[in-house]
């Protein structure tokens, strides 16, 4: 980022060193902070995943005790969801949304600073529970009572950390909505917005709608545990199943919060490297909106086994399966965009293609899980683990990787090492399938989730999966190296980094100066922005 400071001259002098980053209100610098934080958390959460895979390498208890194993599964999920995936998307939004809509900065630069700087403290609190006498949370990231209420006092720290993460996300979402709705360049009508911006707009509304519900649910847990209420305590007239309803009312929109921005990224990259306009732009917008709407009425498919009446189970089953329709529209639109395009396969495109194929596998196993009778068998098995890792790792994370490769020349001003990027892609794609594909079979054979030991019949697939896990995990160090190398130098990047790229972000020089679009660009039918209307 050193290159960007040179362009700071026409604004007041920025503080240097650490206070520059602490006090920055610049959307690009805050975007960078988010992305660096997210990468750090990705490595922390990844290390936890490797503890899990090491323990599961062979049957029997070898490395860690069961309590610590449970802490690892819980913390891995919390760190990856709230620390890696969500901040990465918010970081990408910070960097790219103002550039894509022709705004000089985010709508609320100071709140932007605050919403980032809450996060390191939230995770310091969350991770510090690992060193407390009563240990980190060990009841799964869903924190179901009564189990989650039977831990020690460190539970209060977990709840507080989740509150902070929620506040950070809500402020980030408010900022993104205000930027998109009010700061667009003249002529940038809603239906001329890039797909990434559209998907983030809808995601931000989901965040504002459901993060407060999570805050309410965990506050109820807190008061149940420490202040004698009995929201979820049957002895006091409460109901633990109610927690599951409230949690998943948040939880299902949450999983779309983690995938809709990814859909946006893929919808940017595929047209660029196919050198064609995105097929079915308007249908993409409506598909995203339908997915967002449907996410509010399918939550109980996470809890088919609590014993709900047939009518309820059928409703949630059909509503869930309907989601495959808008999602299918998206996949077919991506394929149609590539159809007869002059495609090239640089690293961002490789990750985007990997996303389309592997995310679709995760989507299909999702449809299998939506079917009530089969879900009774798959519930809480490794089949579920395989499903959500296909949509989150080869879905969300692959899309984030694609986005980094796609936009990093714009951020640093240098091209990344294409050869290493391709090695990273192929290494990741092969190892991630070795890691997660066998877990489908483990689940179908009945291996339950969240256990440190298993029957010997599951030994082979677990061995394969662990080998894949270590290969994938250590492979990501190559990604860290590629990013560092690209920040340090490389081939100078042009303003329009990719010849097929369209959109306002490619009209500013690479690296993007600290301040862009001080005078808003004017967007018309025929200008640069129209990534979707012409090519």
């Amino acid at each position, binding site marked *: 980022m050193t290159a960007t400071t040179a362009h700071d001259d026409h604004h007041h002098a920025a503080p240097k060193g650490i206070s520059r980053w602490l006090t920055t209100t610049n959307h690009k610098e805050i975007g960078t902070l988010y992305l660096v934080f997210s990468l750090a958390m990705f490595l922390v959460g990844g290390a936890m995943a490797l503890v899990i895979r090491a323990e599961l390498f062979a049957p029997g208890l070898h490395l860690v005790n069961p309590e610590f194993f449970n802490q690892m599964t819980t913390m891995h999920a919390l760190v990856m969801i709230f620390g890696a995936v969500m901040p990465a998307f918010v970081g990408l939004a910070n960097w790219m949304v103002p550039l894509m809509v022709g705004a000089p900065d985010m*709508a609320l630069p100071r709140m932007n600073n605050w919403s980032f700087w809450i996060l390191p403290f939230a995770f310091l609190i969350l991770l510090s529970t690992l060193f407390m006498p009563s240990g980190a949370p060990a009841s799964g990231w869903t924190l179901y009572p009564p189990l989650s209420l039977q831990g020690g006092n460190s539970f209060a720290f977990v709840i507080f950390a989740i509150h902070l993460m929620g506040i950070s996300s*809500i402020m980030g979402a408010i900022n993104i909505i205000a930027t998109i*709705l009010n700061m667009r360049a003249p002529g940038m009508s809603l239906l001329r917005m890039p797909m990434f911006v559209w998907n983030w707009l809808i995601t931000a509304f989901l965040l504002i709608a459901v993060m407060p519900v999570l805050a309410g649910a965990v506050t109820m847990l807190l008061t149940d545990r420490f202040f004698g209420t009995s929201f979820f305590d*049957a*002895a006091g007239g409460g109901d633990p199943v109610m927690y599951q*309803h409230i949690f998943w009312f948040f939880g299902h929109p949450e999983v779309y919060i983690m995938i809709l921005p990814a859909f946006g990224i893929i919808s940017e990259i595929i047209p660029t490297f196919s050198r064609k306009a995105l097929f079915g732009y308007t249908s993409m917008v409506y598909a995203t909106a339908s997915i967002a709407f449907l996410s509010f009425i399918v939550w109980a498919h996470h809890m088919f086994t609590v*014993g709900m009446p047939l009518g309820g189970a059928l409703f949630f089953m059909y509503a869930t399966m309907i989601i495959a329709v808008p999602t299918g529209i998206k996949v077919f639109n991506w394929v149609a965009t590539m159809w007869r395009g002059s495609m090239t396969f640089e690293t961002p495109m490789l990750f985007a293609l990997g996303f389309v194929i592997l995310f679709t596998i995760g989507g299909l196993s999702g449809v299998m899980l939506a079917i009530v009778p089969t879900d009774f068998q798959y519930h809480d098995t490794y089949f579920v683990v395989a499903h959500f890792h296909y949509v989150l790792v080869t879905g969300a994370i692959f899309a984030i990787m694609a986005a980094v490769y796609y936009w990093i020349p714009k951020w640093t001003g240098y091209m990344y090492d294409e050869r290493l990027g391709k090695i990273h892609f192929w290494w990741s794609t092969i190892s991630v399938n070795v890691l997660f594909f066998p877990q489908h079979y483990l689940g179908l054979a009945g291996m339950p989730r969240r256990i440190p030991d298993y029957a010997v019949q599951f030994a082979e697939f677990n061995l394969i999966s662990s080998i894949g896990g270590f290969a994938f995990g250590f492979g990501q160090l190559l990604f860290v190296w590629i990013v560092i190398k690209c920040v340090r130098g490389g081939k100078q990047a042009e303003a329009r980094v990719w010849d097929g790229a369209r959109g306002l972000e490619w009209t500013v020089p690479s690296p993007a100066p600290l301040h862009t679009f001080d005078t808003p660009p004017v967007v018309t039918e025929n200008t640069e922005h129209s990534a979707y209307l012409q090519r």
Partner: protein
Amino acid sequence: MIAAEDQVKSTNAQTIGKLVVIAVLMFGFGYALVPLYDKFCEITGLGGRTGDQVAELSENQAVDPNRSVKVHFDSNINSQLPWDFEPAETFMEVKPGQMYETHYVARNRSSVPVVAQAVPSVAPGQAALYFNKTECFCFEEQLLMPGEAKEMPVRFFVDSKLPDKVDLITLSYIIYRNDEATSLASSK
């Protein structure tokens, strides 16, 4: 230019105001789900709720002499409660529309007075609406002195409108220690 910037600022303020209101309302909605859930369960009988209310046997219950339903009695004791707690009969054949009485037996195994509260649940959920208790030990707290045993009655009837496909109803109780009332009782 300055005017335009001010314009954007005030539009932003409006947008943010609205969004903050949505966030606050959704926090409230999370809490509103609690009474909504209770009401929903009460109306539909989901979650096996049988209601805390004393039911009355209405006059127009036509007893079908040819129909009989099996009622299964079940008991669970929370690990914090040093009691024995069992149904006197595990099964009973009942005719819908007719009143029956049975009892559970509880004994305090500890050396201190303990107050407990029983929470009923009926399975299957769709039968919960038709299972009525006119008298139940679960309607109030139960105090047992050290070593004391007690027969605790339940009077109930199954509504004759019970759907035909239900031929087995399980009435299950979990009995919990009531910490507050127990400490009051032992301080007396």
